[in-house]
């Protein structure tokens, strides 16, 4: 076998970690050791890990702050749900979900691209402001929109369900204003979510270690030098941001196909949700893809598990945040980790060489 570089090894470890996590969970589920509460968290924690990986591509690799990734999840969730609800009776499950997934991701990529065109030409923190506004606008529009379909075609209204003028017999409501979309088939499950997480990881990791990834990171490190070295700054910013948005959209597809009623609520798709994703990325380590996965999983599950300890829940959550931050960012901890881990891997290598 060819010798793997350090980076390639690290990539494989990340993928192996996710697979191990999946297998362990499956064993617990099969043997009945996992509570149904915990089981219900598996899909969400996986889609939040996916969204965090996407966001890290934007924040950590490209070096642009986005405060609208929950908005991208929202686009993915709604566009795929609309398709699934409309074709619920017409298509079998597998092709329906595949098409819904493609539509959700494509719509999100398109919107990411369109937002990127004006914003990414500018240098400065404009992206943060624009994405923040974008997320809120999307959420508010989706809260106000009524959409239905009958034999005459698609009907839209911003007032109420009645003003859509749906045919009474053949009409079908799809988006019911703030009540959202009901009846999205629950096509996503833990296995599918893990597969999509693995695919997202492979895409991001392979991209990072390629000429395009180096171009993206060179812009992050020094835009002027990158330009003078022949790097097309706008193109690579667009590429990274669009892929980043698309991955968040994929997380959104899993989101909407995992719940029966999809509403554009602030806690799921507002700026606070975007900031929660950012917390996952920052605490997992900016630019550290594996860290995003771990942080998202821990930080999503933890408050859920602590629900029983009402009083201390937020206290414990904050302590964990602080500990993770210290672990990832304090120079002493980094030093310790490097020494510790390198010793460990050296020993491991020696053992393997025997």
């Amino acid at each position, binding site marked *: 076998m060819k010798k793997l570089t350090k980076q390639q090894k690290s990539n494989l470890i990340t993928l192996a970690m996710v697979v191990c996590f999946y297998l362990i969970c499956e064993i617990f589920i099969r043997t009945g050791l996992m509570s149904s509460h915990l089981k219900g968290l598996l899909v969400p924690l996986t889609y939040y890990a996916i969204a965090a990986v996407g966001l890290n591509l934007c924040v950590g690799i490209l070096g642009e702050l986005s405060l609208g990734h929950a908005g991208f999840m929202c686009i993915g969730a709604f566009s795929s749900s609309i398709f699934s609800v409309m074709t619920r009776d017409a298509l079998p499950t597998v092709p329906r979900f595949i098409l819904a997934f493609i539509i959700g991701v494509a719509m999100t990529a398109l919107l990411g691209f369109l937002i990127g065109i004006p914003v990414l030409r500018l240098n400065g923190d404009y992206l943060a402001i624009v994405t923040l506004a974008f997320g809120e606008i999307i959420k508010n529009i989706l809260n106000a929109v009524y959409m239905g379909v009958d034999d005459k075609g698609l009907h839209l209204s911003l007032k109420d369900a009645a003003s859509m003028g749906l045919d009474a017999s053949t009409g079908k409501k799809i988006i019911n204003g703030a009540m959202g979309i009901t009846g999205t088939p629950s096509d996503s499950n833990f296995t599918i979510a893990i597969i999509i997480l693995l695919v997202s990881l492979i895409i991001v990791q392979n*991209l990072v270690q*390629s000429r395009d990834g180096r171009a993206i990171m060179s812009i992050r*490190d020094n835009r*002027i*030098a990158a330009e003078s070295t*022949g790097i097309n700054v706008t193109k690579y910013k667009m590429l990274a941001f669009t892929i980043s948005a698309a991955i968040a959209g994929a997380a959104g597809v899993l989101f909407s196909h995992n719940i029966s009623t999809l509403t554009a609520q602030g806690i799921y798709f507002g700026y606070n949700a975007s900031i929660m994703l950012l917390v996952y990325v920052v605490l997992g380590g900016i630019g550290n893809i594996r860290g995003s996965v771990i942080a998202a999983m821990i930080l999503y599950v933890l408050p859920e598990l602590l629900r029983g300890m009402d009083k201390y829940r937020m206290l414990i959550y904050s302590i964990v945040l602080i500990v993770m931050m210290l672990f990832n960012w304090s120079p002493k901890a980094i030093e310790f980790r490097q020494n510790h881990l390198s010793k460990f891997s050296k020993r491991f290598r020696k053992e393997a060489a025997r």
Partner: protein
Amino acid sequence: MSLLEVNDLNISFGGLHAVHNFNISIERGDLYGLIGPNGAGKTTVFNLLTGVYSPDEGRIILDGRDITNLKPIDKNKAGIARTFQNIRLFKDLSVKDNVKVGLHNIYPYSALSAILRTPAYHKAEKQMDERAMELLEVFDLAGEADTMSSNLPYGKQRKLEIARALATNPKLLLLDEPAAGMNPNETAELMDTIRFIRENFNITILLIEHDMKLVSGICERLTVLNFGQILAKGDTKEVLSNPEVIKAYIGED
């Protein structure tokens, strides 16, 4: 025909006429020096040549082609590469990856090939690795290929910047104070390296430098800038013995 032909280049920043009627003509294979006291406008000339600023007036002709108003990326593609006075490396990339960014346009493959790890990806990456190591070898940096570039000592960071610029395969290489912050030993070594690349890379070099030993040691011709205007130009020896030039330098110190 000369490689670089600059006619009456002008730029002002507000009321400051930073570069005033700048002319230069550099022949293929020249090792040309641009000198002058602090604030004379030398770096501004580089910024004009590389498209960081666009001139208020004047023309820049490279190899017979008018490149006056091209953007930095297109100036690079046209054949100009540079280093920076205040080092601008890609600090969170390894030494080798810094050079590989320089090779970006030379071994292209698509993002899809990268994600799918197609044979095209592996082939191009292998060529890039080989070329990058060759270049690092020239600058005695091969041993540090996997070091994070920000962890290199200062002198080596300057060399790495030159290696990265060379990787883009330029016709004209602009070096902005390549010896700044180097000790005399390092400077002597750098002089050898600059001579070596001029000889072996079939390249033309224009450099800004304050170190007169380096300038008189390797530059064949000089242009002296003072307050944005050309004070003198010609053979290195003649220029350096020009009383006006000596006065400008002494007046500054």
